[in-house]
């Protein structure tokens, strides 16, 4: 009986030693020598693997950061400025501070403003509907409402509003990783400067058709009349291809443009309600 026990112990121990030896040799043979800074940099990155940096994941981006001589062009849209500063410190390189950005959906074509003209019954993907035709409404640039942007968001920062059929960005959660911007087949979503108290003023339309046509399909379309351009005291608004665009970096949030828009295509968000009298408005950057 004791023989059996001894044999089993000996044979198992031998097996164990053998396995350990093989593992050790293989580990030595296939050892990859890595820059230890990659791990340090990776720790500072958000670890969401969102692809916002155009690399397959945070680790790959960390490697890229360590390898590159000049890292000022490399940017993780999700990481905070402190994170990036820490990375710059680890690597001993310079990095520019970036403006915080937030995704903005530039379409306000709710069913009320933009009536349905047909019923879409294909696979529920914006990109498929977009390649098929103009969409359920008549607007060739408007939101298709099938949620490609929602599906790509890694941060749960964008969701569909059941009533309006349009995506809504939750500013606090949005990291400006650019995923939804890329996913939208109609380029409706734009990364814009994040202002105090998440205030924003933007032209909520990207339709470049002639005013009449655009208006026919959507009551809140930009018709390219140019009144906002004239109104803007900071030359922040440009008009191109029948479409006005407010430059978020030039805009000082004076709110002068929104009231003059005949189609209410300019949206003001998170501002205090306007007072009835117009004259009280419009101290530059006057949200105090």
């Amino acid at each position: 009986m004791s023989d059996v026990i001894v044999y089993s112990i000996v044979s198992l121990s031998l097996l164990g030693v053998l396995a350990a030896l093989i593992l050790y040799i293989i580990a030595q043979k296939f050892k990859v020598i890595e820059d230890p800074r990659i791990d340090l940099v990776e720790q500072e990155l958000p670890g969401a693997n969102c692809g916002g940096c155009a690399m397959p994941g945070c680790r790959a981006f960390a490697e890229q950061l360590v390898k590159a001589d000049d890292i000022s062009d490399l940017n993780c849209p999700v990481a905070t400025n402190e994170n990036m500063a820490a990375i710059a410190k680890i690597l001993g390189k310079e990095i520019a501070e970036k403006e915080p950005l937030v995704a903005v959906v530039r379409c306000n074509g709710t069913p009320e403003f933009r009536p349905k003209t047909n019923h879409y019954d294909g696979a529920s993907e914006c990109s498929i509907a977009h390649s098929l035709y103009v969409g359920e409404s008549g607007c060739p640039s408007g939101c298709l409402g099938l949620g490609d942007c929602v599906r790509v968001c890694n941060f749960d920062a964008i969701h569909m509003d059941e009533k309006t059929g349009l995506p809504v960005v939750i500013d606090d959660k949005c990291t400006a990783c650019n995923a939804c911007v890329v996913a939208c087949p109609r380029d409706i979503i734009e990364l814009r400067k994040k202002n105090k108290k998440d205030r924003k003023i933007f032209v909520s339309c990207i339709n470049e058709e002639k005013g009449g046509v655009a208006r026919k399909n959507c009551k809140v379309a930009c018709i390219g009349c140019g009144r906002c351009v004239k109104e803007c005291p900071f030359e922040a608004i440009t008009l191109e291809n029948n479409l006005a665009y407010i430059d978020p970096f030039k805009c000082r949030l004076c709110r002068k443009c929104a009231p003059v828009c005949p189609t209410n295509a300019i949206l003001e968000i998170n501002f205090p309600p306007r007072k009835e009298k117009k004259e009280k408005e419009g101290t530059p950057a006057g949200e105090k």
Partner: protein
Amino acid sequence: MLKTFPKGGIHPAEYKITAGKPIEVLPVPKTAIIPVSQHLGAPSTPVVKKGDTVKAGQLIAKSSAFVSANIHSSVSGKVVKIDNVTDTSGYRKTSVIIEVEGDEWDEKIDTGKTLKKEFGLSGEEIIKKTEEAGIVGLGGATFPSHIKLSVPKGKKAEVLIINGAECEPYLTSDHRLMLEKGDELMVGTKLLMKALGVEKAMIGIENNKPDAVEHLTSLAVNYKGISVHPLKVMYPQGAEKQLIKSLINREVPSGGLPIDVGTVVHNVGTAVAVYEAVQKNKPLVERLVTISGKSLKNPGNFMVRIGTPVSELIEAAGGLPEDTGKVINGGPMMGKALNTIEVPVTKGTSGILVFPENESKREEVQNCIRCARCVSICPMALEPYLLKAASERGMWEIVENDKALDCMECGSCSYICPSRLPLLDYIRLGKSNVSRIIRSRKQ
């Protein structure tokens, strides 16, 4: 045993309701909307402007690139505007809108019905006339025909294939054309043979059109080199590569063209259009359109001027039925659903189908049960279930390596799927992404 292609294929219910309806000529519309992009390739450039008076057959938009085609006015009248109008692509595109006054044709055009058999033109002259007349493939793909006729250097065409398969359910326009314009078709085929420099032409017809097979076989006796071949009914036999495989048992290589295996395929409609262009100087300004649907009062085959609004065509067929759920431009397998019936008939409109509501909606989607039917019926021997899954997840490498670009979008996989998965929708998505990736790689 009749010939067919060996891999895959399905046999959908045929519903060739209009097979026995002779061609009727649809009256000239009040307003013609003529898009400048009715073909595969670059849109043409308009050469008329607002206020111009045009005659039927007059050039109104000129080919702007290598792959492009001339556009002619199909009516006589006044150009009222050049504007963006929704066309069969589902988007608004530049179109020339002509208010019709009378029906005056360009002087050069012979509008008579007499058959003109003899021709003394050289191959190049025929190609030139085809190009001038703006002829594109009338089977539905609308690829400019003159490019197909110009055999590239180093390649040689051995046989011309004329496509009379018409494998799509419902559609009967090619069928009627073969029956009623058999002689024109034969002369057109002779012209195409001359242009390509081949001695042999084969007309492939699916065997559900025995009258057309018989009629053309009896005519072919008088035309040297042309033979008629009945084929087993199998969708998608009318696809170029499948038809070549069926008729001459050659496989066009992946990513290649028919000319790589020494052949060129033209639709029967194209052959007739070439006849009219060369022998009668008549550019492509009208085409045969099947209008069909189970609840239509008067389905039929109409000779329609390009630019006629679809609504007028439907009116001629007895008006839009109460239970309409979907209007399709083309066949039920590959055609495109229209979002409005105010779009014009274009060169690629082989049929307009009006589907009742209960056949318009897709059925509920279930899990893939991996039954492998899509794999077994794919005529290109692809794996639709895999391409769909990869496209859905954005795995474009798999989509590319598993040859999604070989897919010709025949729709057999979506047709057969017992789980009603939108396989083709996702394969299309995969194809467009893969082509984009390939393009960016080349830069």
